Each structure stands twice: as structure tokens, then as C-alpha cells.
């Protein structure tokens, strides 16, 4: 459903992405792993059109991806949550909803999404600066799923959370994918997350995808050995 071909991106002299090819099917959950600084976040931002790649194509159903149109149907969790400082938590979560419904209705949905990520109604009226890192991450997650997107990108959804919370976020993501048939791309360092939410796992290393295979067969893949510890 989404396909990336020969994606290249350099910052100055350093090539971060050096011919990345990747494909995610409709309703599939793909996990992308890789060491810190290998360009996983850059890859996501290229797909979203937030960074202009130097080379390569991004296709959606075989057509060049029209990002502006695509944005309507997807959600994104940024690595640093990227909550808007000037808006309260519920206003952040309901940001897109408020563009087309009353504040009352949008707030009700926001509260429900916050509950799904384990944040109670008492957090709804806090400002992002009042949240802990893990709470901000979960609020960002609630914002990403608020409008029931068809495609969701998660940049390290469980980083900075305690293991119990991390597992519940994993099952939330898995649940969204199976319930709504959404397509998910998750960047993570957490192999337990990969096992819990991924159908397929891809390893980004040296600017390329060096392994791409089903999660079920991941223990036999030599390329992944050092990640599995």
C-alpha cells in the first residue's frame, strides 16, 4: 500500500539514507529497527513529506504519494511527542477533530482516546509543560490515533515508559491494527515491542534496509542477532 524506492537523503556530506527500499501492505504492521542515529526518524519524515529526499520515490497504491491528501488519513506520533505548548492536553488530542466538530464533541472523543493510553480525565486540562516525559508520549499517542487514521506512524512509542506501560502501549497498537485494519509503521528499539505488534520487521543499517522479514522468523535471522542479544 505504501512503497518507498531508492530513497536517498544526505545532510551535508553525510549520507543518512542511501537507497532505502521498503513496502508496507494494507493492514500490515511493520516495525523498523536500527541503531540510534541511523536515520529511522528521517525515513519517516521523508515519507510524510516533512523532509525533502534527495532522490527516490514514495508510492501509495502505486501512485506517487500526495502528502497533503494523505495527511487527512494518517496519524503520526513524533519521537519527542511534539505536543503544542500553547494548547492543553485535550486540545492537542482533539486538534484535528476540532476542525470539523464542536469543541464539546471533540473533547468527549479526546477523553476517550486519553483513557485508551492510560491518561485519566484529570490530565485533559493540563498544559504539556506539566506532563512527565512518559505522559507526554502517551498524550502524543492519543493525538496520533484520535481521528481513527488508516495509516499510523509511531516513532518510538514505548521509549521512556516503564515496562508495564510499554506492554500496554504495545497491545494498544496491536489492538488498533487488528480492530480497525489500520496500517502501522513503528520505529522502535524494543524487541519485545517488535514481537508484540509487528507482522514484519525491517532493519535499517548504513543507510539501507539490510533485513526485511516476518517477525515470526526473526529469531533465525542472522542480521538481527545482535539486536536480540
Amino acid at each position, binding site marked *: 500500500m505504501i512503497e518507498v524506492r531508492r530513497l536517498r537523503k544526505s545532510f551535508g556530506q553525510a549520507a543518512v539514507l542511501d537507497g532505502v527500499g521498503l513496502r508496507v501492505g494494507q493492514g500490515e504492521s511493520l516495525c523498523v529497527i536500527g541503531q540510534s542515529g541511523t536515520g529511522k526518524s528521517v525515513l519517516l519524515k521523508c515519507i510524510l513529506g516533512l523532509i525533502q529526499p534527495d532522490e527516490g520515490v514514495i508510492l501509495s497504491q502505486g501512485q506517487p504519494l500526495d502528502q497533503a491528501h494523505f*495527511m487527512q488519513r494518517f496519524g503520526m506520533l513524533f519521537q519527542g511527542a*511534539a505536543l503544542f505548548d500553547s494548547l492543553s492536553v485535550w486540545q492537542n488530542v482533539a486538534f484535528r477533530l476540532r476542525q470539523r466538530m464542536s469543541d464539546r464533541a471533540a473533547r468527549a472523543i479526546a477523553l476517550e482516546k486519553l483513557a485508551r493510553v492510560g491518561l485519566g480525565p484529570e490530565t485533559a486540562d493540563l498544559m504539556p509543560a506539566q506532563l512527565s516525559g512518559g505522559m507526554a508520549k502517551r498524550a502524543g499517542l492519543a493525538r496520533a490515533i484520535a481521528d481513527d487514521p488508516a495509516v499510523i506512524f509511531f516513532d518510538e512509542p514505548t521509549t521512556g515508559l516503564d515496562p508495564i506501560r510499554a506492554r500496554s502501549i504495545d497491545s494498544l497498537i496491536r489492538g488498533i491494527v487488528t480492530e480497525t485494519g489500520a496500517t502501522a509503521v513503528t520505529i522502535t528499539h524494543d524487541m519485545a515491542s517488535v514481537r508484540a505488534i509487528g507482522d514484519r520487521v525491517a532493519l535499517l543499517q548504513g543507510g539501507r534496509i539490510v533485513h526485511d522479514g516476518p517477525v515470526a522468523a526473526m529469531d533465525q535471522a542472522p542480521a538481527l542477532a545482535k539486536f536480540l542479544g
Partner: protein
Amino acid sequence: MNPLRAIGRPALRLTRGIGAVTLFAARGLGGLTPFPARAILAQLLQIGWLSLPVVGLTALFTGAALALQIHSGGERFQASDVVPAIVAIGMVRELGPVLGGLMVAARVASAIAAEIGTMRVTEQIDALVTLSTDPVRWLVTPRLWAAILSLPVLVAVGDIIGIMGGWLVGTTSLGFNSATYIANSWAYLEGWDVLSGLIKGAVFGLIVALSGCWFGMRSGRGAAGVGRATTSAVVAAAVGILAANFALTGLFFR
């Protein structure tokens, strides 16, 4: 090294830069549908209302100092009774808008650049895009219009306070009669003196908000990037105000 190339490169880059800023300004000014009334109101408070104290104080001291200077300078050719008229004209045409603009540049261009720059480095600008919201319309438009609208008002207030500063010094230590001072302030003042200063104010408002937004949006990564953006915004706004003031004065009063 080819000398033509040495000139050509920077010239090209400058032209491109001016073009990009102009385009950015046009996009920012044009984002008025749907009309962002609440956002503009919030920015009017930030940019206009909260700048009143600093602009007022600046004008007060400037008007007072101006009165002293003109009095002592005027004595050299027995013309010290021109103090009220010159203070009024000097404040309204030149010092009100320029000093008001510079003070707002220090206060507001830095604040805008820091705020938008922080949003840039914490990926909030990217997040806006992914939520189908144009960051220029959301962030830049309200700030540009609020600055354009509030600067003339700030200048007008500064003009009045500056003239009062002159009056205060004139009547308390230069021996002017209060009623005469006020009458002489008004007598020589023309409508265009005031209006030209207000127009300058609006242009300076645009310059201040534009440089804050421009450098904020293009902020480099990390806290250092935001710091540089803030500095650049204030410097660009201040130099821009002084250059625009020269150009406008030439245009209005030649």
C-alpha cells in the same frame, strides 16, 4: 578567481533571499480565510498591550531629553522658544516610530523567534503539517497582522507621552508656561507629520514580526539553533527598521 563571479554569487544569493522573504511575507499576510480572530486578538495582547510600558517609558525619557537638548541648542541663536514645536515634530515624525519600533523589536522579534524556533526544534511545526494545518497560516499570519495593527497605536501613545515628557521638563525646569507650551506643540504640528509616523509604525511592525517569524521558522537544531535564530531576528529587525525609516523619510519628506 573571476571577479564577476565574486560579485555575482553573493548578489544572486541576496536576490534569492529577498525573493524568499517576500514570498514568505505574502503567504503570511494572505492567510486570512478563515479569519483568525482569536489568534490575532491573543497576539495583539502579546505584541501591543504588553509593549505599552516599555514604549511609554522610552518615549517619556526621549521627549524629556529632547526638550533639554533643543533648549540648550536653541539658546545659541536666541531661539529656545521653539522647544515645544520641535519636540512635537521630532517625536511624531521620527523618534516615536523609530524608538518605539526598536523597543518592540527587542521585546517582540526575540519572543516570536524563540517561540517559533522552539516549536521548530521540538517538531511542533512538523506536527502541525501532519495535522493538515498550514504552519504559516497558524503561526505567522496572526503575528504579522497583530504587529502591523498594534505598532501605529503604540507609536501614537509614544508620541503623546513623548510630548508630555518635553512638557514636563519644559514647565518644571526650562521656565515655560504650561498653556503656552501645549499651544505651541499643537500650533506647528501638521496632520501629515503624525500620519507619516503612524505609517512608519505599521511598516516597522511588519518588519519586527516578519523577522521573528522568518528566523524562528528557519531555526537550526537544538537550543543553540534557537538562540541564534533569536539573535538574528532582533538584529535583522533593528537594522531593517533603521533602513526602512531612512527610505520612508526620504519618500515622505523630500
